[in-house]
């Protein structure tokens, strides 16, 4: 049965995402329904369906603790769809089930909106419409597969122009209209507002896109692409955190002449921060900057957003450090990580200047440490002691964390910056793609007279990491086997770049088409849209134009065929003869009429014969070409029975 198949297709992706019991339930119910349809068995009694429905609601509530929200709501819808199939008998219920199917397609988009998935869902919609068509055909003989799919496909195809008009011009509202349920953005990955040894290395396993950058002009060298995210000040001996308070940033920094211009399209991560290079020159709309150069969006980044930025890579800032910040940047728990603290203090005592301490620390990391994605777990209460003096194998957060602690112990103000480093340039569209795998943590120390200076201890341990990216740093065993495998084969790499370029366009123009993009796009078309009323006006105009076009195309095809030119010519011929006193009787065929004309008016016989023969061939023979039709019309025009009569009389 068509509906069962369509429903199974649309639910299949959900089954993989939702708890197993939902899938099992759905498959069982659909199998039961298929069996009923196949064996023409009886549908289950109403009370059983009702009981199952109640059971489904209760089970959903038990599983999620509620029945609303993305996951719970979807689960409930899937279960209801299954039960609806079960009790489906009347045509009304079938149509209802199809509508439910459309809603299920929508719920799928809550989970994924990639190109392949969109195509898959389009196929599902097609199946549903085909089911509707088949259902309407119902009364007669059962329609064939083609008779269902072809009209449904035609309908959808003819709907595409109007869909595009609406998509482009429908006034977009900045969602959400009401508070999103808690889990609306579940599964978003990204940086968090704290750093514990081990949490960034988890993120690094992910190939997911963090954001994309389109540079205006040349792409700066890889080694300076430090994308700043959350800045961590608070340290409790194990975890570094973003301070609770927030102070707006001052613009007190000196900077070089040339800014870098770029546009960032950031994937939703559910938090506030945005990413930028070093010192921002201009701020995007709806964003602010903190004193520690942390760029923050006013709304949480719940959907893909795009912003334009300028940054200065050559800068000095924070040359004056207020004492409150200084205190914060020096504080640590004396009782934790005693060995590390002692080491820092010893360096401070032995060195003449903070710069010397910094150099010594970098030297220290350079000699004895190994960069690895799978560091040993640090379980003790003094994790940095354990790392520095025992395991000596770590990842960027280990290096950044222990380095910052050493600096603080040595009396140098230090803080941790998390974010992303580097990215991958797609040669096709010159776009930099930054993945979660590029997540990074580094240190900023404050030096008298220089302000805050970026130091990356990881770069000392694994210079490749900064120069060429994570895959190079980890060598052949690699983090992301699929990516490396792809890189080995040129063709695959080219394909991957092409796909990513396409995906980027998809993200920017389809998925990221929001209020801002809409205005931008329309003004590039020359439409200045001041408010939604303009938009509604244009929408109406475009809808009428496009709809009218499609509609006329359909309606005109049906209008009665225009009369055959041969017939028009013939009628004119008859009218001329009638005017000359020789009217054709209604029952008279063309040849009979010709015979009469020939006998009564021999003078015009040759012309009459010519015209009649052509007409007969046009109507009863194999038809006339366009040229022959014109010739016939010319003959009829030249035909002058009255004149011929007069001429004969005159003679």
């Amino acid at each position, binding site marked *: 049965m068509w509906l069962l198949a369509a429903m199974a297709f649309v639910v299949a992706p959900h089954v993989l995402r939702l708890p197993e019991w939902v899938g099992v339930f759905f498959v069982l119910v659909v199998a039961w329904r298929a069996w009923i349809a196949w064996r023409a068995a009886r549908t289950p009694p109403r009370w059983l369906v009702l009981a199952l429905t109640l059971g489904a609601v209760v089970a959903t509530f038990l599983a999620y603790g509620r029945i609303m929200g993305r996951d719970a709501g979807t689960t409930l819808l899937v279960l209801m769809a299954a039960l609806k199939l079960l009790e489906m008998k009347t045509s*009304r219920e079938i*149509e*209802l089930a199809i*509508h439910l199917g*459309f*809603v299920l*397609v*929508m719920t799928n*988009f*809550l989970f994924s*909106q990639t190109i392949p998935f*969109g195509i898959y*869902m389009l196929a599902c*919609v097609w199946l549903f*419409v085909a089911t*509707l*068509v088949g*259902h*309407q*055909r*119902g*009364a*007669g003989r059962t329609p064939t597969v083609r008779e269902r799919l072809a*009209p*449904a496909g035609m*309908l*959808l195809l*003819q*709907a*595409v*122009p*109007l*869909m595009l008009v*609406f*998509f482009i011009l*429908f006034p*977009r*509202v900045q*969602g*959400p*209209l*009401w508070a*999103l349920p808690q889990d*609306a953005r579940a599964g978003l990955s990204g940086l968090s507002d704290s750093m514990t040894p081990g949490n960034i290395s988890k993120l690094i396993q992910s190939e997911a896109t963090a954001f994309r950058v389109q540079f205006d002009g040349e792409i700066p060298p890889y080694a300076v692409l430090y994308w700043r995210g959350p800045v961590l000040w608070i340290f409790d001996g194990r975890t570094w955190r973003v301070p609770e308070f927030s102070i707006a940033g001052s613009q007190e920094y000196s900077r070089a002449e040339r800014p870098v211009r770029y546009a960032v399209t950031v994937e939703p991560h559910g938090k506030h921060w945005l990413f930028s290079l070093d010192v921002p020159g201009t701020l995007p709309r709806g964003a602010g900057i903190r004193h520690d150069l942390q760029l923050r969006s006013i709304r949480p980044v*719940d*959907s893909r957003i795009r912003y334009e930025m300028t940054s200065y890579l050559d800068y000095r800032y924070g040359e004056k450090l207020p004492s409150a910040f200084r205190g914060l940047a020096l504080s640590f728990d004396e009782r934790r990580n005693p060995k590390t603290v002692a080491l820092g203090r010893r360096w401070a005592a032995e060195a003449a200047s903070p710069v010397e301490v910094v150099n010594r620390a970098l030297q220290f990391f350079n000699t004895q440490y190994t960069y690895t994605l799978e560091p040993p777990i640090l379980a003790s209460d003094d994790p940095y002691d354990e790392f520095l003096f025992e395991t000596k194998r770590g990842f960027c957060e280990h290096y950044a964390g222990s380095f910052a602690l050493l600096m603080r112990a040595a009396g140098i103000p230090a803080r941790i910056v998390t974010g992303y480093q580097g990215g991958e340039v797609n040669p096709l569209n010159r776009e930099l793609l930054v993945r979660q795998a590029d997540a990074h943590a580094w240190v900023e120390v404050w030096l008298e007279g220089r302000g805050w200076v970026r130091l990356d201890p990881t770069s000392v341990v694994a210079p490749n990491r900064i120069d060429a990216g994570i895959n190079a740093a980890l060598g052949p065993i690699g983090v992301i086997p699929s990516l490396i495998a792809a890189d080995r084969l040129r063709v695959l790499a080219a394909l991957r770049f092409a796909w990513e370029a396409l995906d980027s366009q998809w993200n920017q123009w*389809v*998925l*990221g*088409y*929001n209020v801002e993009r809409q205005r931008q796009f329309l003004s590039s078309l020359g439409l200045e849209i001041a408010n939604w009323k303009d938009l509604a006006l244009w929408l109406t105009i475009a809808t009428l134009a496009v*709809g009218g076009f*499609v*509609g006329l195309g*359909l*309606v005109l*095809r*049906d209008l*009665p065929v225009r009369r055959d030119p041969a017939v028009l010519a013939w009628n004119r011929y008859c009218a001329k003869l009638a005017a000359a006193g020789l009217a054709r009787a209604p029952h008279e065929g063309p040849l009979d009429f010709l015979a009469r004309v020939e006998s009564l008016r021999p003078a015009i016989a040759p012309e009459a014969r010519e015209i009649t023969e052509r007409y007969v061939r046009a109507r009863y023979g194999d038809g006339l070409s366009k040229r022959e039709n014109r010739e016939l019309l010319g003959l009829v025009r030249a035909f002058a029975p009255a004149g011929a009569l007069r001429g004969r009389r005159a003679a």
Partner: protein
Amino acid sequence: MFADLRQSIADWIFRTRHPEAPPVTLVQRRIFILPTRQGYLFGLVLLVLLLASINYSLSLGFLLTFLLAAMGAVAMLHTWRNLAHLKLRPGRCDPVFAGDTVRFRVVIESPSRERFAVAIRRRGEPPAFVDVRAHEPAIASLAVPAPRRGRLACGRLEIFTRYPVGLFHAWSYFDFGLSAIVYPRPDPAAGLPPPQTLAGDDEGIPIAGDEDFALLRGYRPGDPPRQIAWKALARGDDLLTKEFQATASAELWLDWIDARAPDPEARLSVLAHWVIEVERLGQSYGLRLPGTAIAPGRGDAHRARCLEALALHGVEDGP
């Protein structure tokens, strides 16, 4: 509910319409279109989808919503097109006996494309669906029960379609003034007409083979096929009809007076049975009713004439 509402509105708008001469072409302005209940529900679903798309900023959600909405709009056009320019003619409508089912037939012709699931219905009755191929007349046959004898008027018919997706109901009305003759139900218990009605002869009813062949005459429309001189036709002559001379003694009058029955309807039933039986025996017979008489004769045309007289006896014979 919507169907009822639409029906009553339609009744109000189209309350006066006289029967039209066939053929009727469903031109643009004759066709009405409104969403079905399913269509309104679809609209509601679209609204839900739109709200969800806005709330969750789902671009593909917007695309889905707009695709479905545009599909609905296009479907409206298709539904309308499925009915437009159809040509309707009344079809054959055979008389039946009371208690049987009349089949009103409408011939539907499509001048252009193939049309699917076009339905004809009388008000409040189940529709008859038919697919109409291009240039190939299709016949929609409406079964209407005929409980009583007389003339069963078909009344105004609705032609409608919901193809392709059932979101819209396009319809039009037409009235050819179709009617069907409903014969009285024959009373099987009536037996044969009483012998005394045989005009002074005791021989009883002669059987078919005994009659004398009288002459051949030219075929007239309505002559029963079994009286056609097929052999003459085979020889190359024109269509001829064999005429039989019924003997005077075999002339039989089926009389209202003789049909003993408690009420006029039952009498008519008895007479109907007699007509059928006597015709089957090949006897020539006449029919006498209060106010009318049909001269003796034979054959299918005569039988039909007699039964029709019975059907319409005492019935206002208006269109």
